[in-house]
C-alpha cells in the first residue's frame, strides 16, 4: 500500500467516526438557529447553553464509562439526587461547613456506586436490574431522609458558584470541561481506561488476559459514583436547594448522550468526546426549539426525530443499509 492510499484510508477512517456526524448535525442546527432566529447567537444564550450542558454532561460521561464495560447505569439520576440531598441537608439542616457537605455528597455517591458494583460483581445481578433496584431504593431513601420536602437554605456563596462565570464561560461548564478532559485522558492513557474496553469485549476475555474483573467493575462504578457526586453538588448549587425529584429521569438523557456519541450498549465502544457532543445536541435542540418559538408538544416530536436522525445518519454512513 502506498502512502497516498494510506493517507486516504486515514482520512476515510476519521470521517467514519461518529463524532464527525455529530459535529455536522450540531453545526447544521447551530447555523440554522443563528440565521433563523434573532437571539440565538448572543453571548447570553451561548453561555446559557453551556451552563445547561454541564450537569447532564458530567453524568453522561460517567454513564459512558459504565456502558463501555457493557454495563448500564439506571441509577445515575437517583445517585445525583441523593448527593444533592446530602449536600443540602448538611448545609441547611445539619449545620456542617460547605467543604464537609461536599465531601459527604461525594462520599454517598461513591458508596452508591460501590453498592451497584457489589451487586453486579459479587452477586452477578445484571447491571440493568442492579441499578434499577438501587435507583428505586435511593429514591425511597431520599424521600425518607427529606421527608418528601424541599430542603432550602443552601449556603449563598456556594449557590453563587453555579451562576457565576469566568468571562463568557460559566463555572459549571468549566467543571464539565475539566472533567471531560480528565476522563478523556484516563480512557486514552491509563490501564484502567483500556481495561474498560477489554471488559466490555467480554468477561472471559478480561479474565484470561489477567485483568481483574473485580477491580475493574468496582473502579468503574465507584468512579461513576464520584462523577455523579460532583454532578449532584453542582445541581444543588444550581437549583439552590434539594428537591426529592432532583435528577429524576436523567438516566434517559445520559444514556442517549452516550449512544449518540458512539457508545454501544453491547459494550466495548464509546468516547468522551462523542458523549460531550451528544450532550450538546440534546441541550441544543431544546434551546433552539424555544428560540424558534415551537410549542412544547411539537418540540417533543421534533426532539425524538432529531435523535433518531442523528443515529440514522451515522449508521448509514458507516455501513449503508442492510
Amino acid at each position, binding site marked *: 500500500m502506498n502512502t497516498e492510499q494510506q493517507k486516504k*484510508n486515514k482520512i476515510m477512517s476519521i470521517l467514519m467516526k461518529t463524532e464527525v456526524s455529530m459535529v455536522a448535525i450540531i453545526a447544521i442546527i447551530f447555523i440554522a438557529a443563528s440565521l433563523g432566529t434573532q437571539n440565538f447567537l448572543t453571548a447570553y444564550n451561548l453561555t446559557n447553553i453551556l451552563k445547561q450542558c454541564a450537569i447532564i454532561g458530567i453524568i453522561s460521561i460517567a454513564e459512558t464509562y459504565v456502558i463501555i464495560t457493557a454495563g448500564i447505569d439506571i441509577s445515575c439520576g437517583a445517585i445525583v439526587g441523593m448527593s444533592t440531598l446530602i449536600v443540602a441537608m448538611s448545609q441547611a439542616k445539619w449545620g456542617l461547613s460547605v467543604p464537609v457537605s461536599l465531601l459527604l455528597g461525594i462520599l454517598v455517591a461513591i458508596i452508591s456506586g460501590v453498592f451497584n458494583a457489589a451487586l453486579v460483581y459479587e452477586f452477578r445481578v445484571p447491571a440493568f436490574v442492579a441499578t434499577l433496584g438501587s435507583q428505586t431504593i435511593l429514591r425511597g431513601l431520599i424521600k425518607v431522609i427529606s421527608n418528601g420536602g424541599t430542603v432550602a437554605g443552601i449556603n449563598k456563596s456556594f449557590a453563587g458558584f453555579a451562576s457565576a462565570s469566568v468571562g463568557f464561560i460559566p463555572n459549571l461548564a468549566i467543571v464539565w470541561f475539566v472533567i471531560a478532559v480528565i476522563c478523556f485522558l484516563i480512557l486514552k492513557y491509563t490501564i484502567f481506561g483500556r481495561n474498560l474496553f477489554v471488559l466490555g469485549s467480554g468477561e472471559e476475555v478480561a479474565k*484470561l488476559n489477567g485483568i481483574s474483573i473485580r477491580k475493574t467493575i468496582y473502579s468503574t462504578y465507584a468512579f461513576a459514583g464520584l462523577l455523579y457526586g460532583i454532578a449532584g453538588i453542582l445541581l444543588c448549587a444550581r437549583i439552590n436547594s434539594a428537591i426529592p425529584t432532583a435528577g429524576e429521569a436523567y438516566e434517559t438523557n445520559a444514556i442517549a448522550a452516550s449512544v449518540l456519541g458512539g457508545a454501544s450498549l453491547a459494550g466495548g465502544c464509546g468516547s468522551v468526546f462523542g458523549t460531550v457532543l451528544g450532550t450538546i445536541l440534546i441541550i441544543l435542540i431544546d434551546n433552539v426549539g424555544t428560540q424558534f418559538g415551537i410549542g412544547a408538544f411539537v418540540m417533543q416530536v421534533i426532539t425524538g426525530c432529531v435523535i433518531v436522525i442523528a443515529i440514522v445518519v451515522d449508521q448509514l454512513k458507516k455501513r449503508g443499509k442492510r
Partner: protein
Amino acid sequence: MEQEVLLKIENVVKTYPGVQALKGITTTIKKGEVRALVGENGAGKSTLIKCIMGVESPTEGKVEINVDGTWKSPKNAIEAKDYGMHANYQNVNIAKNLSIAENYFLGRVPLKGKFVDWNTMYTESQKVIDKFQLNVNPRDTIVSLPVAMQAMITISKISVNDNIRLVIFDEPTALLENDKVETLFKYIRELKESGVSVIYVSHRLEEIMEICDSVTIMKDGSYVETKDIKEVDKDYLISKMVGRSMVDIYNIERQKPGKELLRVEHLSGDKFTDVSFTLREGEILGFFGLVGAGRSEVMRAIFGVDKIHSGKIFVKGEEVSINSPKQAILKGIGFLTEDRRKDGLALQQSVKLNTNMYSYDMISKNGIINLKKETDRAEEYRKKVAVKTPSVNQIVNNLSGGNQQKVVIAKLLCRNPDILIFDEPTVGVDVGAKDEIFKIIEKLTAQGKGVIIVSSYLPEAMGLSDRMIVMSEGHVAGSLDSQELRSLQEEDVLRLASTVNFD
C-alpha cells in the same frame, strides 16, 4: 465420462474498506468433485466462500450453481439452502443458548401442521449424533460443550439436510483430533459418492492430499492455479502458496534442558486427576490427547482460571498458590487459550489494543500507558508474526482467522513470560506462518524459556516436542522422552491416548 459442472465462479472481486480481499477469482467445480482451497492466511479463502454462499455480495463478478439444469446465483443464505448449498464456516457459528437439536435444525425446523415438531427434532438429531458417534444429548445446550464438540456439531449439522448439492468446509479439522477427522472424511466420501461437490479449506496439506480430487491455490486474493491432486505434492503447494520452499518445519534447534521452571505434583481438578510433570528451561513439552482428555483443563488450572482440588504447583522451585490469571502472569506464566474468539481476543477492539492488553503494565508507569511504546510494540509484533492487516488500528474481528491467531500469539510474546503455555497455537495458521511461529519458539527456548504445547494435531505435537505427555480421560496415560518420541509411530501414540480405565 466428463462430469457435469456444478459451480461456476466468474471473476469474483470483493473489496472491504481498505482491503481488497478478492482480486478476481475464476474457476469451476464439477459434480461430485472434492476441491481443496489453499492459500496463506488472509489469501481470501473464507471471503470467497462467503461470496459463493451469497452471504457476502461480491463487488464484481458472479457465482452460479447448476440447479437441475438452470443456473442460479444465491443472494442470501436462504436461497443458498434452497439450491442445496451448505457451508461450515470458519468461526464456529452456532446459537449458543439453544440445544444441539435446535442447532441442527436452524432455519429448517420440522413442523407438524403449523407447529414445531419437537419429537421429530429430537429423534432425527439423535440419529445424526449416532451417525457421527458424538456421545451427546440432543437436549444439551451448546454453551455446555467444549469448542471441539461445537465444531463437530456444526459439521454434523449439514447431514440433517436433504437435497444437498454443495458442501463447503472452512478449516473443519482445526480443532478436531484424529478419529473425528476420520469421521469427517468418511462423511465427505459419502457425499462425493452421492454426487455432492465439496469445497475443502485447510492448512493441513496432508489432509488435502488424502481427501481432495483437485486443488485451487490462492495468493493475496488472486487466483494462482487449479491442479489435479495427482499432479501436485505438499512441497509444490507450499512453494506456490508461500513463494518459497520449506523443508521440515518442525526441524528446530533443540536446547539442553536447564533449571526447572515449573513442576506440577499430583494435581487434580474437576476434569483431571493426579497429573504430574516438570518443565525445564529451554524445553518444549508437548501435551497430546483426544478431545476431552483434559489437557486444557490442566493448563487452565495452572493458570488460575479453574479451581484445583489437590496437588501442588512449583514455579522455579518455589511452591505457589495461584488463584487468578493475573497472579499467574505475575509469576511469569503466559497462557494462550484455545478458543481465541471466546477468551483470547477483544474482538471489537483494535489489533493494537489486543497485542498489548496482556502486558500494559510493562509499558506504563503508575497506570499511565506510554502510547508510543504501545504503537511501537504493536508494529513490531505485527512484523514479527506477520499479521496481515491494513493497520494496527484495524478491528481484530475483521482479520482472517489465521491472522487473528497470530495476534493472540503476538499478545503472549509481548508479555515475554518465562513459561509459555500454548493451547492449540497453530489453529488455522498457514504453513508459512507456522514456520515463523516455530522459529519464534526456537528463539524462546534458546533464551532459556520453557514452552508447553497442547496440540491435537499429532504430527505437530510429535514433531515439535522435546518430551511429550499423553493424556486420556483426565489422567496422564504416558510420558514420552525425546528418544521414545523419535522412535514411536503415530499409531502407538494414538493408542496411548485412547487408553481407558484408570481406576
